[in-house]
């Protein structure tokens, strides 16, 4: 039920992902004689705050900018990067490999959150 006003998107109230960002961790807390009865919310909050590991973010940006003007991505995925770097720089490879693992986990969590939100994935960087 959004109204389009020129370039401005209007909504009286947020969609699920916006509401999650707005109402969790905020508001008057009642700690006596009231139960907080939630399922999965703590997990959701943690996942929403995950910062996708920087290596993964960098590669997404690199691909996005390389693909401007319709160029085809010739790039391997993060696994390929880990292999390639592992060939030359063994210390860095361990760090990158760990980061890649973290990126995988974070990506799964974020995908889970977005799926739960039933809203389109964020613009760009996909």
């Amino acid at each position, binding site marked *: 039920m959004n109204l389009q006003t020129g370039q401005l998107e209007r909504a009286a109230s947020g969609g699920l992902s*916006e509401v999650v960002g707005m109402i969790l961790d905020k508001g008057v807390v009642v700690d006596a004689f009231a139960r907080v009865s939630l399922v999965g919310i703590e997990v959701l909050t943690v996942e929403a705050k995950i910062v996708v590991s920087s290596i993964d973010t960098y590669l997404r940006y690199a691909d*996005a*900018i390389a693909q401007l003007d319709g160029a085809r991505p010739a790039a391997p995925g993060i696994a390929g990067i880990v292999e390639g770097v592992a060939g030359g720089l063994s210390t860095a490879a361990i760090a990158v490999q760990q980061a890649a693992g973290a990126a995988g986990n974070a990506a799964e969590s974020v995908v889970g959150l977005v799926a739960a939100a039933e809203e389109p994935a*964020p613009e760009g*960087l996909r």
Partner: protein
Amino acid sequence: MSTATVNGWYLYGIVPSAARLPASLLGVGAAAPHTVTHGAIAAVVSRVDQPRALGSRRDLLAHARILDELAGSTSVLPARFGTVFDEPEAIVSHLLEPRRESFSDALARLAGLVQFTVSVRHVSAVVLREILDAEPEIARLRDLVRAGAGRPEVRVRLGELVAGAVARTRAEDARHLHAVLEPYREAAVDRPVTGGEPAVTAAFLVQRHGRARFEMAVAQLAAEWAGRTRVRLLGPLAPYDFAGAVLEGAQ
């Protein structure tokens, strides 16, 4: 948390006792909200009795919709999502009475004010083009990567530079957003953003009678940024991002 059954009185927030509830809205648990009044303040609650824990999409949206609807006509202190009282008597004895003064003070401070939330998303192809045109080193590395000549580290380095440039663009856009809206709001707070989320998200506390001017200013900014960003304006909302600070100030 041990049992999945929820049976009690679900709390949305605290309002002045003169406030009128939105008609025909169903809350968490699909019951209509009502007030429990104590002197000048009242708790907005609804009966909930269900065999599952709270936290569904419907529960979250119902919590926000009730509060946002209230915010359209009265000042309101939002409660943390998921607060349920086992006994209706406890709403007065353990919530309203012990904190009567600070709730009243906070509601008085929030009188006539509503929250709007503005989020700005970059149209990534356009913003990346701006960055490419402005940063020769990024353009050089990008050509290497496109030609397939760059080693994997070059790709990481390119992405790192772009990420830095995107972060600077976000910071500049946030500064501009706040400068443009400053005359039309009473308070503002930034929400941290990460990764592919909106480039900038900020909450503004706005006079209810001045909301048209605020909304106009946001629309003008959206027009100014047309093509490179998508600007989304939510509200009027309950003051989720300000109630905590206002309550602290009231105590």
